[in-house]
């Protein structure tokens, strides 16, 4: 099959799909030879995955055809100006609700989004963001890790490519952050011999670099899923809200975890990042930064991001986010889990950690985050509740200050908030 034929058939197919959704907006079709039939043909023609038995996942698209396909899809999505139709076509192609050739389609999706990143295609990234937000966590983190592999480990200039994405689609960046923070949860596995999995739960330096640079660039990035909730998103997310295992609304919880726990990063992660040969081009200063430096930058950026949470809280309060005005951006359960993780990481032997140890630094960071979060009302929690929550943690001066406050300043609780402004 030459280029034209396959491209033409893909184009043809896309046009058909488009028509279906366009018409559906007007008069929803009910005939049997409509959407379902079309979807089946989609799998056949676009992905060449005939039938629906699972055992037969033979790749029949050549690598070149795959490339043509994602190229064609990229062009189509960019050209499709109707946002709803664009997403419906995208969703139809890569739906995780359909079992047929799921893994292969997901693979193509990864390539497509990767190409979207490379070509700065807002349309592709927006669709991907909504797709990630609306499907199960597993698929979202698969896509995220594929992108991390492509741009953070394999490609030479990949970090720069990703960094510049926040100019293209902030919502994509936000959802990507949610996905990576949930994937790299920094949990320490008990069986130390599983070297691989330990490494896998910690983000690589390049990824940290990307995230911190995004947050530095736009602290409000964290909340753009809440603040930029438009009609399409609301519709789609409402439909999939009932799904149990989806990504959270904002990356706040995950980022807080990263900030606090990064100090305990295993040496293997540190080492590999520091020894990675990057001597060829050092155009950006962050490239040469060490893991812990990246983390303190991230911590700083996160604190800034917390301070920028007001619009999001307003939007929630207005009820424009999923119609739930009581939505918690960072709830107590998540804080509790974080404290538990922190305790697991800390050495239990001494309750007052030595100064400049990673335990103290971690507790201090937690105290800072908690203080700002509470003062910004991101974390809705009374003093007493926080005291009981943080009680098991090793005590540091800062945590004591945050939890109990200095006696003389007891009257003016609002002081930290004012420092934020």
């Amino acid at each position: 099959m030459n280029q034209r034929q396959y491209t033409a058939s893909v184009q043809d197919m896309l046009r058909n799909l488009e028509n279906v959704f366009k018409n559906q907006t007007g008069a929803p079709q009910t005939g049997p030879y409509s959407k379902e039939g079309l979807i089946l043909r989609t799998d056949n023609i676009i992905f060449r995955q005939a039938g629906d038995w699972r055992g037969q996942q033979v790749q029949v698209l050549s690598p070149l055809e795959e490339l043509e396909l994602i190229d064609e899809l990229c062009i189509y999505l960019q050209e499709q100006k109707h946002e709803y139709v664009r997403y419906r076509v995208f969703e139809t192609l890569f739906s995780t609700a359909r079992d047929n050739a799921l893994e292969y389609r997901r693979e193509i999706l990864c390539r497509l989004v990767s190409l979207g990143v490379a070509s700065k295609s807002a349309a592709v990234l927006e669709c991907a963001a909504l797709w990630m937000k609306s499907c199960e966590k597993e698929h979202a983190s698969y896509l995220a890790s594929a992108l991390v592999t492509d741009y953070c480990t394999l490609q030479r200039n990949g970090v720069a490519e990703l960094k510049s994405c926040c100019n293209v689609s902030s919502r994509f960046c936000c959802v990507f952050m949610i996905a990576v923070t949930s994937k790299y949860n920094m949990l320490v596995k008990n069986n130390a011999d599983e070297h691989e999995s330990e490494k896998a739960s910690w983000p690589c330096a390049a990824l940290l670099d990307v995230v911190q640079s995004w947050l530095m660039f736009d602290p409000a990035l964290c909340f753009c899923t809440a603040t930029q909730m438009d009609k399409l998103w609301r519709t789609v997310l409402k439909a999939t809200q009932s799904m149990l295992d989806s990504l959270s609304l904002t990356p706040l919880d995950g980022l807080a975890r990263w900030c606090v726990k990064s100090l305990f990063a295993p040496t293997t992660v540190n080492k590999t990042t520091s020894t990675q040969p990057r001597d060829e081009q050092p155009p950006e200063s962050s490239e040469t930064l060490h893991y812990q430096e990246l983390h303190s930058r991230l911590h700083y950026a996160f604190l800034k991001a917390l301070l920028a949470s007001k619009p999001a809280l307003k939007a929630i309060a207005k009820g424009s986010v999923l119609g739930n005005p009581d939505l918690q951006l960072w709830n107590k359960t998540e804080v509790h889990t974080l404290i538990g993780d922190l305790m697991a990481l800390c050495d239990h032997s001494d309750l007052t950690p030595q100064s400049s140890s990673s335990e103290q630094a971690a507790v201090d960071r937690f105290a800072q985050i908690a203080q700002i979060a509470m003062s910004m009302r991101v974390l809705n929690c009374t003093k007493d509740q926080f005291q009981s929550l943080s009680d098991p943690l090793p005590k540091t001066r800062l945590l004591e200050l945050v939890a109990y406050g200095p006696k003389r300043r007891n009257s003016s609780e609002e002081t930290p908030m004012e420092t934020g402004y």
Partner: protein
Amino acid sequence: MHASNTKVLIDEKAKSKQINATSKLGAQQMVHWFVASSYASSSFTEERVKNSVALLHRVPSARNAVLHRFTMLYEEAIRASLDQMEFPTTAIGLSSEMTSSLELVTTTLFDLLNENGEAWASILCSWSVESLGQISSCYKQRQVIPPPTNLSRLLSFWLNLVPMRMLLDVYRTSLNILIQCNVASCLDSLLSASSNHSPYFDWVVADIGNAFPNAVIERVLNTGFSKFCKLRWTSISITPSSSITMNESEQSILTSVIRILEHLATFHQTQICEKMLEMFKTPPADKSTGQIKIVFFLMRVFSASIQLLHATTNLFVNEINATTLNQLHKQFKRLSKGPEEMESLCSLVVHLVCQSSTGSYSLVNLMIAAASHDSQKIGGLEKSVKDIFSNILPSILKDLQHLALSKQSEDKETNNVFFELSNNYPNLCKDIITTSSDERKKWLHSVLLSVCLNHHASHVLSHLLIESTTAAHLEIFLKLFNDVKPFVPELTEKIVIRSFTAIKQMPGEKSLRLLINLYHLTSQTGSGLVSDNFVTRMTHCLCIVLDELVSMLGHLSSSQQIAFNAVQLLYIILSSVSSYKIKLDMRLMPLTQTLVFYFYKLLHTGHVNNDQAMQCCQRTLVQLSQTPELFAVVCRFVLEASVSQENSILFGRRVESNFSENESHSSQDLCTDHHVSLLSMHRKLSAQTISRRCSSVAGFVPISIETGMVGSGPKQKKKCPISKVAQTSNNESLSLLLYRCCCKTTSGTDISHFSIPDVAQAFDAVKLSVLSTSLLSAIMASSPYLATAITLDGEPEWPSNQVKKFTIERDLKVFHFMDEHPFAWQLLSLVAHNYRSLWNLSPILRSCISVLIFHFEASRYNEPPSETSLHYQVALQVIQIARKGQLIPPPLCFVNELFHIVTEYEINVLMVVVWNFIKDYPPPLEGENNEVPVTRNFEAEGINLQPYLATIHTILHANIDKLGHMFSRFTMQS
């Protein structure tokens, strides 16, 4: 020079600009370009390749497509190279553009690996190995490429092809990185490529294996094992993990693992074996079932690869002990899903054992030991484990037997399970003989049976036959024999021949065992395991080795036991096989000679007539001399031997005393002997004589003359070195032997309980006449004097009484001979049953009578002779024989009754009467019809006895006081 340098620099700049120019394009545009160029007609221009490289750097999602493109570039380059090889005149080979493109691509890939090896290695590794596979199988049809069977040529061919070499280098480098980073899955791609593109891909496997033998072996085994575990012990409901693709099955995994290992085995066999052993010894983390899983895996590997099985059998057998087995069994119980699994495991074990080669003996031995609870080899085994072995073992043995049968017709292979088993058959035989456990015996029996069916029947059975020492052992032999017999033609012959060939190299007791066992086998009949047919067959087979038996019997170094058993066997053969079958006509001489030699050996060693050995020997000789012709031979040998130098002393021949036992003594004291005074000796002797005789003969002084060389002492008296008792016994043995030979009914009787009546009817007349001639010729042969003496006047007719003066010397010799060979009297008495035969021997009687006449004529004692004196005894015997042989008729033949009463001179007179009668009335010659009457009818011959009786009557008258009562005896009843 300088100018050109700058030009190069400018070119470089231009190039880098160009690259930069493309890289400044948008990602999508680059993709468009790339797609378009891929479909373009002449695909690989340098610019396009550069663009591809740029795309690879820029757009990660285009990675697969670009790499695919690179594969095609390599493929194209290889095609060009192959074309040039095949058609050197027309094809141009690699263009410079193609070369530089290739270099660009290869350097790009190497740059990626150098810069960020950890990330790229796995991608490039799987890509390059798949490309290698594709290209290898893509050009499989090309004629220049060596066939995949010739791996070394194929390998060197591809390695000399530059593009292929480049690709392989990429693969090697990335694999090296992966191995250094300790990535467990680094060989998965090699495995799958190997299963997809074999056998055209094998050269890659071989090359990689040689480059990283340890790593490859370890990974291949580990990867294979983990996949095997997952497929086998992960329940289907769980979605298969990502490391296993859907189309992988246990079999395909094993196949690819084995294919790689077998390639490696040519050069790295020991490493593979060690690695496998290490896997076995250090089971994976899963403590509860880890080891049994390994065992399952390894067994499957072995079942698919005979080569590996053969290489490792010994290693593993050494590792297995009771503790291991117990532990494995525990783990198996934990893992097992049901009896089907056990069954399949068992059949796998059976298969493996049947396929094994080196080490098969120790393997089988181990299994038997385990099944029979042999505490020495493998102690402390749990009962359940033992039961498993007991269950497996019968099917193994059955399969082995089937295998042996199916391979029976084929040529001997050196590389199958029987090779080592067969080599170890002596050990197996030893085991089966020594073991006390019935169970074990049964299994060993089956193993031996299969070894037998595999060309080694005669070896095994003969070994058993030689090694057996008890009846129980022989039972083992017979059982095995009965089982093997239907499958092996002419088994008995083979066993017998093999046994007799084998014992030549063995110590004497083995020969003895063999003979004893053979005797047992052939002599017992009607017992449960031995069919009559077997015995006859065995006996017939023994004919083949008759010569060996004879030589064993005749060999000087053979022990008496051996000889005894050999004779027993000979007897069995002779008594049950027809002489035609034995080819007796050819073998008679050596056979008889040996038997006779043995007979005299027995006599020399002091055997008496009642000894078992002696009886057996006699029985055999009797058996041999069934017909007169055969008897003639036997008789001749026996008698000739009896008069020979060394044997005749057995019967009383006197020899110089330096042959006697005091030879050493006399030789020591030779000097003292020299000084013995003859005179004093003489005086001493004559004094003795006088004191003895003077009482009866007054006034007579006998003169005894001692002869001898003056100065060398007295003449030594000749003396027989054998004691009197022994002499008697020897004589008796010899004569009894001949008596028995001459009997009419001799076959099939136990001669020890068979008494021979001394009547003519009991003996075969023809044999008697044969005996007579033989005896005569033996006597003639005994010394030159006798030879001439008897043949000088060989006429049977007796001369007149006066003529005997001329023959006195000869007569004395004969007399002397008869004295030294008392058995001759017995034989004469035997022959006397047939008077015609006795007549043949009449010269002997004649000489004896002649000597007696001379002796008694010269005697001057007026009293009867001493009853112990030699001449008196001989006289009695002569008369008795003459009577028995009907040379003299009744009244005349009673003269011997007078001998102890009348004086010696009167005896002389009587003897002369007898002489005259025999001279006057010799027995009649054959009648017209050649028929010889059994008894001589003196009356019919019309003999007038009166003149002879007159002389007797005179003597009776002279001694009427003493002989009065005898008178009536000597009157003719008319």
